């Protein structure tokens, strides 16, 4: 048991300083020692901002505060964590791999209208094309009857002219 934890300590020490200090300030539940209540053992940093990667509304003033880490520094940390295989220890951030993949799927080709639940608006003539062709088709189906009737009634007595 001691050997295993010793190995983990060695692995943790092998991490870059940036990552180590971040994990020390914001330790995820996964790396807390067994038998410790995650609610009571929060660091001071965690009490101030549960997720330093997201903007936070101040509980008293109600003002929005920027994330403690800028998006650039978040991306740096995520890249660093990914190369060392500890990405899942970081809190939620839009820079995480799975979030980026999710976004990629949602947005599709980045062309407006190709993502999930999006529609290509198209030009007006494209939107009305189906209805127009249907109207034409019905008129053509009715055409022999119309011509027959027109010939029967005669030019002189015909009264149904289009508007």
């Amino acid at each position: 048991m001691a050997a295993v934890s010793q190995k983990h300590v060695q692995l943790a020490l092998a991490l870059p300083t940036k990552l180590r200090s971040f994990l020390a300030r914001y330790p995820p539940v996964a790396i807390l020692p067994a038998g410790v209540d995650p609610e009571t053992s929060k660091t001071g940093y965690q009490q101030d901002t549960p997720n330093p990667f997201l903007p936070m509304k101040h509980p008293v003033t109600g003002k929005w505060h920027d994330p403690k880490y800028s998006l650039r520094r978040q991306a740096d940390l995520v890249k660093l964590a990914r190369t060392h295989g500890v990405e899942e220890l970081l809190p939620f951030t839009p820079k995480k791999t799975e979030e980026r993949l999710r976004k990629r799927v949602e947005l599709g080709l980045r062309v407006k209208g190709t993502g999930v639940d999006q529609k290509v608006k198209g030009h007006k003539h494209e939107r009305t094309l189906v209805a127009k062709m249907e109207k034409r088709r019905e008129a053509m189906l009715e055409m022999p009857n119309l011509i027959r009737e027109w010939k029967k009634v005669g030019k002189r007595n015909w009264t149904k002219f289009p508007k």
Partner: protein
Amino acid sequence: MAKKAKSRTIIVRLLSMAKTGYFYTFTRPRVAQPMGLLKYDPIIRRKVLFLEQKKKGKAVI
């Protein structure tokens, strides 16, 4: 001032009954019957009935 005399002939528009919006324009005497013709509609490439369109408003053509 006297009103301008109406012309003897008028220009009429014969609309395709195939609802394609295609039309021919003809002149006919004002007093004649409204026109109707079997003519070619290039949009559906067939001969269809063309009927004179009713005049809108007071516009004198």
